[in-house]
């Protein structure tokens, strides 16, 4: 990597920048959603873009998720590259049929004649003292749909690079943004547009004793747990940032666990039939003979909603990841 001009940004600004640069680069990119225009989005991710690109390109849509996705599918079939915002991931089941029946399938259905180059951005996850349907983690529902890609960045820099990649990706990408991360930290982000390959996990910390698999807001939790394990137990933890949930980068995961023999998977989604199940099953398939302990899942409980007064008790935290890691190491 050559030296590059860098700017320090939080995740909201980093995402906004990716949108701005891609819109400047490609006139087919347009934005569509509730309150994305004049208001700049309830989280301000699309701030100022309507002023720059006009209300035909940054569209304040009526309040109807299925039509946001459905009309975006039509735009994509025409050759545009819509970036849709669903205001909160909890309201995306309204458009799940348009995503599953159509966005994910037009390429196959038309045998390549059409495809849906589109991004569906949604804030997800807890940590912002919000009401029901504003704190859930629904990545599993998208990960199971063939034809979709499911991406979750872990901070400003990966967010900016992955959103750029997602906009340029010829397939429909579900792009989850952790509300807890929006303003959590700033990172250096290069001035020049940067991409990251979709479908590739990153080893963000190397280690040989244990693999921690995480993504989104849970990456920080995993990293801090790794610090604690290093400091208190002298354990060398390898931490993987999935970045893409689907297609899952089994190669990187399996290679890591092939080395460490032990894995803990962390996510905010409920446990049963959740993402960690696929990760655990894939590890078993790919690294069975290396496994020294069962893969542990540290996840939210199988409860749809707990209210923010109880949220901390329901979502994985550093202490619980550390405890699970210790049990896995002691197995």
């Amino acid at each position, binding site marked *: 990597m050559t030296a590059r001009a860098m700017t320090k940004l939080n995740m909201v600004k980093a995402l906004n920048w990716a949108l701005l640069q891609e819109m400047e680069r490609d006139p087919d990119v347009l934005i569509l959603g509730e309150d994305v225009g004049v208001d700049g989005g309830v989280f301000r991710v699309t701030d100022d873009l309507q002023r720059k690109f006009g209300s035909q390109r940054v569209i304040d849509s009526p*309040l109807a998720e299925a039509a946001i996705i459905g009309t975006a599918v039509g735009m994509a079939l025409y050759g545009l590259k819509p970036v849709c915002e669903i205001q909160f991931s909890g309201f995306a089941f309204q458009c799940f049929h348009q995503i599953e029946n159509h966005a994910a399938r037009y390429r196959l259905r038309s045998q390549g004649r059409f495809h849906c180059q589109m991004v569906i951005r949604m804030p997800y996850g807890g940590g912002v003292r919000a009401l029901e*349907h504003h704190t859930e983690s629904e990545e599993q529902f998208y990960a199971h749909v063939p034809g979709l890609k499911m991406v979750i960045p872990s901070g400003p820099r990966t967010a900016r690079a992955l959103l750029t990649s997602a906009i340029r990706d010829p397939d429909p990408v579900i792009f989850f943004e952790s509300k807890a991360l929006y303003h959590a930290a700033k990172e250096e982000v290069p001035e020049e547009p940067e991409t990251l390959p979709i479908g590739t996990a990153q080893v963000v910390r190397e280690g040989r004793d244990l693999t921690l698999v995480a993504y989104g807001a849970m990456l920080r939790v995993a990293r801090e747990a790794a610090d604690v394990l290093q400091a208190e137990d002298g354990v060398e933890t390898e931490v993987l940032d999935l970045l893409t949930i689907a297609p899952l980068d089994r190669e990187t995961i399996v290679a890591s666990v092939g080395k460490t023999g032990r894995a803990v998977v962390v996510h905010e989604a409920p446990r049963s039939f959740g993402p960690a199940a696929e990760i655990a099953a894939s590890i078993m398939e790919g690294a069975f003979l290396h496994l020294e302990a069962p893969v542990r899942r540290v996840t939210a409980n199988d409860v749809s909603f707990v209210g923010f007064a109880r949220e*901390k008790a*329901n979502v994985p935290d550093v202490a619980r990841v550390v405890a699970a890691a210790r049990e896995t190491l002691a197995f």
Partner: protein
Amino acid sequence: MPRTILEPRFQVEYLSILDSEGNLDAALDPKLPPGDLKALHRAMVLGRRLDERMVRLQRQGRIGTFAPIKGQEASQLGSVFTLRRTDWMVPSFRETAAMIWRGWPIEKILLFFAGYVEGGQPAPDQHDLPITVPVATQLPHAVGLAYAAQYRGDDAVVMAYFGDGATSEGDFHEALNFAGVWHVPVVFVCQNNQWAISVPLKKQTHSKTIAQKALAYGLPGIQVDGNDVLAVYAVAREAVDRARAGEGPTLIECVTYRLGVHTTADDPTKYRAEEEVRAWEQKDPLTRFRAYLEKKDLLEDGLEQRVDEEIAEAVRRFEATPPPDPLTVFDHVYAEMPPHLRAQRDELARWLREGAATGAEAPETPPRATPMRGQRLTRR
């Protein structure tokens, strides 16, 4: 090209009774007894004062984000006033005044917005659904309740609330269509407050009124001055009576205005002009009704203070709520706890017991954190 025009032709009516100075169109007077007028007024004042108090509680971090009602008191109370206790009320998320009228204790509403699931529990004998957050999704529930009432032979009526933005959702359409086909006793009350967050009505739909959307379902639709509590009452009374008499559903459009923020996480200066707000402040439903009552000599002395005290007491009860027990969330997922939830509950219980001993960070209990991150504090 000349064509036949199909009969019947369609029309939509509009009703207003009190003008903005509180003068009554006597021909239209619904003739409510003084006691009812005073009760309505008290409920409107309570709605307004509680709203203001809740904004302060939110700014202090004592409750989370909520949706203020300022400006919509007449729409909510004029309509809900027509219900019997055995009728059903189906709110969206901005019906605080109507909910209190229906018997929700203020402290429960505060608990709700403080992130306690306990705040969503209606009393055993209360025929109210809890707050619905996903826009318009409650409307089919209202139709189902009405169907069930009819099926059982009960004479209950169902009143469902929603906003102008909600009319764009598929659920609105499907609910009104089912209601029309099934001819059930439901009254749809749209609080058209002109805005859905930052989206004004003209970007929401190309139809001139919400009321005319009823024509798509073969239903009566009527538009009413939603800042005129007597007009709202009159229209709702008629719709409720017709529903109860087996004459089917009605769509009521209350033309009103959200004088405050969308929610406490919103900044309306970003998307609407101050002059527009000022103009609507002239039509404040409270001022108008107050002027009318004054003329009728029905204003009560010290009403504001009494209402404030009631609120203060409720806030005290709210503040005295014990910290939430995280283990209770497992209780209401299913009627009986299945093994995997029992295991997760046991795990959490062990964790809560042992956590401190192992030096682990204890799960947060009282909800006293910073306001919702990622959304700005607003000026209004």
